[in-house]
């Protein structure tokens, strides 16, 4: 895992902010503001809301894994508990007609997440590695189990519902519309992301990287590895709590699944898919995952299989995640040779994609033949409806798989060569 996230742009940098530092943020904000005008349907806004909540949660998770070297199997707990507290707060506001506007709710969610994280962190951050991972798993299971025992707080199996519209109107906005909630979540997503980014630039954020790389050396520089971990852990809990509050606002219900280890596993998967070595990695991971989840789950019943395969492929072949794949192209771009890669990429990737679709079609066919009710031979795949018991679809899928794979194999060496050439500075022999 290469880590370029803390590569300072320039060492003898100017004290003022440079354009390169500000530009990504400005673009992101414009993008977030413009998105609902491009995708106006309610379902699109629902997906985008979920995406932003996942971004905050994934970035908070990466404060532990990517920045601090702490592998947590129980991070959902901090988001969940923050969310449950917010749910109760919502109900208290409703019952007592307290004059609190909804947009400040995430602050409370964050504080509750922070509170829980300081308690757990006080003993779990003593060691990193396996000890930390096991404690996080244990605490995760413990609190998940509590959710069905302490029903007064967690609402048992039905979960804890609430109503966000009883808050004090915020400049006349009562958050009845999905779009109003979108902008509230967008605001908090940008703010949290900015704060988490700035945290990584502070002394304690830098030392989190140092402790991740070499805890013992950090101790001999005057820093207690345990305290550094504790600060990262608490901060991660705070932002997880914010994500939980955003979840509470968006869905108006929290259930035990919000606390489950499955959720904790999913966020690990998302962070890894996006790339834990880069600050922006989890953002890409959250976007890609939410899209895949919402698009694939509509198209296929076995979408989790594809997600699992993607995760495996990432871990095995691209340990830097999607962000790592993107950043791999920086040297070539610096040499001005990125364009030379386009044709070789098309030559290899198009057949590869065909092979993947072919393989997916084969799996869908098998799944349909095995699991569809008797007599139901009709299936729809890639917008075509056909009989899954005919030989033709099987033949087409097999040919696409084998042929695509063969063509990709055939052109792979030339892609490799083009890659090598693109990463050699001009004027030097390749």
């Amino acid at each position: 895992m290469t880590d370029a996230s803390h590569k300072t742009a320039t060492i003898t940098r100017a004290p003022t902010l440079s354009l390169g530092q500000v530009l990504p943020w400005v673009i992101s904000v414009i993008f977030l503001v413009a998105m609902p005008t491009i995708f106006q349907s309610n379902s699109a806004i629902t997906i985008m809301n979920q995406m932003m909540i996942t971004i905050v949660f994934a970035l908070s998770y990466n404060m532990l894994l990517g920045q601090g070297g702490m592998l947590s199997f129980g991070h959902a707990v901090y988001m969940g508990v923050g969310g449950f507290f917010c749910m109760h707060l919502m109900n208290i506001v409703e019952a007592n007609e307290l004059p609190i506007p909804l947009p400040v709710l995430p602050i409370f969610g964050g504080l509750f997440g922070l509170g829980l994280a300081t308690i757990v962190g006080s003993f779990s951050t003593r060691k990193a590695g396996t000890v930390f991972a096991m404690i996080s798993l244990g605490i995760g299971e413990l609190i998940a189990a509590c959710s069905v025992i302490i029903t007064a707080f967690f609402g048992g199996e039905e979960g804890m519902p609430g109503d966000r519209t009883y808050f004090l109107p915020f400049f006349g906005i009562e958050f009845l519309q999905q779009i109003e909630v979108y902008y509230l979540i967008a605001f908090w997503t940008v703010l949290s992301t900015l704060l988490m980014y700035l945290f990584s630039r502070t002394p304690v954020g830098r030392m989190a990287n140092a402790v991740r790389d070499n805890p013992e050396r950090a101790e001999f520089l005057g820093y207690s590895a345990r305290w550094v971990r504790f600060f990262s852990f608490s901060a991660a809990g705070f932002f997880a709590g914010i994500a939980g509050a955003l979840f509470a606002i968006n869905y108006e219900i929290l259930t035990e699944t919000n606390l489950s280890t499955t959720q904790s596993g999913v966020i690990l998967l998302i962070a890894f898919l996006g790339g834990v070595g880069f600050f922006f990695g989890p953002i890409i991971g959250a976007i890609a995952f939410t899209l895949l989840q919402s698009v694939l789950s509509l198209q296929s019943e076995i979408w989790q299989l594809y997600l699992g395969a993607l995760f495996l492929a990432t871990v095995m072949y691209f340990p830097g995640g999607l962000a790592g794949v993107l950043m791999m192209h920086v040297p070539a771009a610096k040499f001005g040779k990125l364009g030379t890669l386009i044709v070789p990429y098309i030559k290899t990737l198009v057949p590869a994609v065909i092979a993947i679709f072919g393989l997916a079609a084969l799996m869908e066919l098998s799944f349909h033949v095995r699991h569809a009710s008797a007599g139901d031979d009709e299936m729809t795949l890639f917008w075509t409806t056909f009989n899954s018991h005919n030989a033709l679809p099987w033949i087409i899928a097999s040919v696409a798989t084998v042929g695509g794979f063969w063509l990709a194999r055939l052109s792979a060496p030339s892609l490799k060569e083009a890659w090598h050439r693109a990463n050699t500075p001009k004027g030097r022999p390749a």
Partner: protein
Amino acid sequence: MTAALEITDLKKSFGKAEIIRGVNLSIAKGERHAIIGPNGAGKSTLFNLITGRFPQTSGSIKLHGHDLRGKAPFEINRMGLSRSFQITNIFPKMTVFENVRCSLLWSHGYKYSFWNMVSRSQDLTDGAMEILDQINLLQRAELPAGLLSYAEQRALEIGITIAGGADVIMLDEPTAGMSHSETDYIVELIRKVTQNKTLVMVEHDMGVVFGLADQISVLVYGEIIATGHPEEVRSNPKVQEAYLGAALEAEH
């Protein structure tokens, strides 16, 4: 004047094995003190005891008159003692510049701050660049430290060790595994960066020891059998018998 480092009757056992068997040592301020001895004599253990990596079984270690018993490495570091490691011990995924800057943070009073931006602090940047200049790694500043050559990593290790401004510097075999020219380079570097500081080092290379040290202690089987000026130690019959003779013969 209190000694920079005062060790009295220090003992350390691992289970039944007694590794350090009563060491007495006093190192004055500004002294360059080398600890030598055959393999397995307990030199590295002694280092680890002084720096708080292991707890001592009995005896006392005093840094500028303050007892170090029960102190964690980070507390000892804050009291003005810094060490390097026999095996290169840097932050491999961070840039060379970041490595040095991290080692400046505590001494510049940033502690566990999460409200300062490190890149906005000119004193940190200047301080780190100055150290990089001293260890001749300015050109390498932006590289991940793990990509440096072995000798450069050793130089960086020394840079990290001295950066915090500690006045007692402990180097554990700084020239281990180096070629002749690299060794000369590192010795010059050590001489340069430890001026006006107390230096304690473990070293196998007798050329380095006699070239750099004002005082030498010979550690054999967990005990110091001789301490003194290089010439005294060289002519001490006990030392020659135990260790140095063989090593000196090999040298010449």
